[in-house]
């Protein structure tokens, strides 16, 4: 906190370790869980509820449903892309600003 410069290489390594850990967590189930369907679909949800309460009918339908899995994945990836774009923009802006402040400080020294 008091001396941010000496921390930078260390925290960079730290950040890479975090990324690797997240990737491992995402990939490991694909390798280790045999016979998993990796579905997240609504018909499975229906099953769980109708097991508890047979004959339950959903009383309201989505106003708009993506016409196919492809369109749905397009919308999901757009959502991720938009969000990632904003995060990249904000972090980039902050990084540029803090670098500028650092170099200003060095010049004034």
């Amino acid at each position: 906190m008091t001396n941010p410069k000496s921390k930078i290489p260390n925290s960079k390594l730290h950040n890479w370790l975090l990324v690797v850990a997240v990737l491992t967590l995402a990939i490991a189930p694909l390798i280790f869980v045999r016979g998993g369907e990796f579905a997240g679909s609504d018909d499975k949800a229906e099953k769980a509820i109708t097991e508890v309460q047979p004959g339950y009918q959903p009383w309201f339908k989505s106003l708009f449903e993506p016409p196919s899995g492809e369109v749905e994945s397009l919308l999901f990836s757009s959502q991720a892309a938009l969000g990632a774009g904003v995060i990249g923009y904000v972090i980039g802006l902050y990084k540029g600003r803090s670098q500028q402040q650092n170099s200003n400080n060095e010049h004034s020294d």
Partner: protein
Amino acid sequence: MSRIILKSKRTTLIIIGVVSFYLIVSASAPAYAMHIMEGFLPPKWAIFWWVVALPFFVLGLRSLTNITQTNPELKLLLALSGAFTFVLSALKMPSVTGSCSHPTGTGLGAVLFGPLAMSVLGSLVLLFQALLLAHGGLTTLGANAFSMAIAGPFAAYWIYNLTMRLSGKQRIAIFLAAALADLLTYVITSIQLALAFPAPIGGFIASFIKFAGIFAITQVPLAISEGLLTVLVWNWLQSYTPQELELLKLIKQESQG
């Protein structure tokens, strides 16, 4: 001194790694996990959760206008918190149960701006997914907003402050806040479904165990991922935006004192 800190960081990482690996290899049962689908809460419960969630949303709007009016320079950081939730809830990741679910991303904003701000941002993400992706739904929006945009952020906020008071280690506090908020979101979802669909034998408890087995277990590794990703963004913020973080700390001290 710094070597000791580095060492304890490494041990934490190793512990997290070992626990995650154990969870990944040991459990395996097919299931799904996400928000409550459109039309899948009986009308009376749908209305109930809408009524519960609405006041938080209104208070959240007030808190947001308050933040942006008094400190317009924080808007960028607010956008970042919203975008973080937006990205994370689009990432459907494979999990130990052989099914997919997504993290919530509400912990970061809750720690930065307080839980009420996230009740608005999280609800907006849910609304987007309900309208455009047929993921979640309008009738179940109240229930989903309560679990993801209200209960999760409030838990994150309390866990962060509690851990800070007990240990003073900020990264661990952030990790726990984000991970447990994520997990709690789906525990609440299970409670909501169990309340609406109590089992004929065993009632609420039996039903809750069934739904929690589906939702919460799938969520464990994703909660860990969410905790790690939140720490990653936190690291960036700490290196590049010390002024804003300082400002937020001051605001919080004022509102508490």
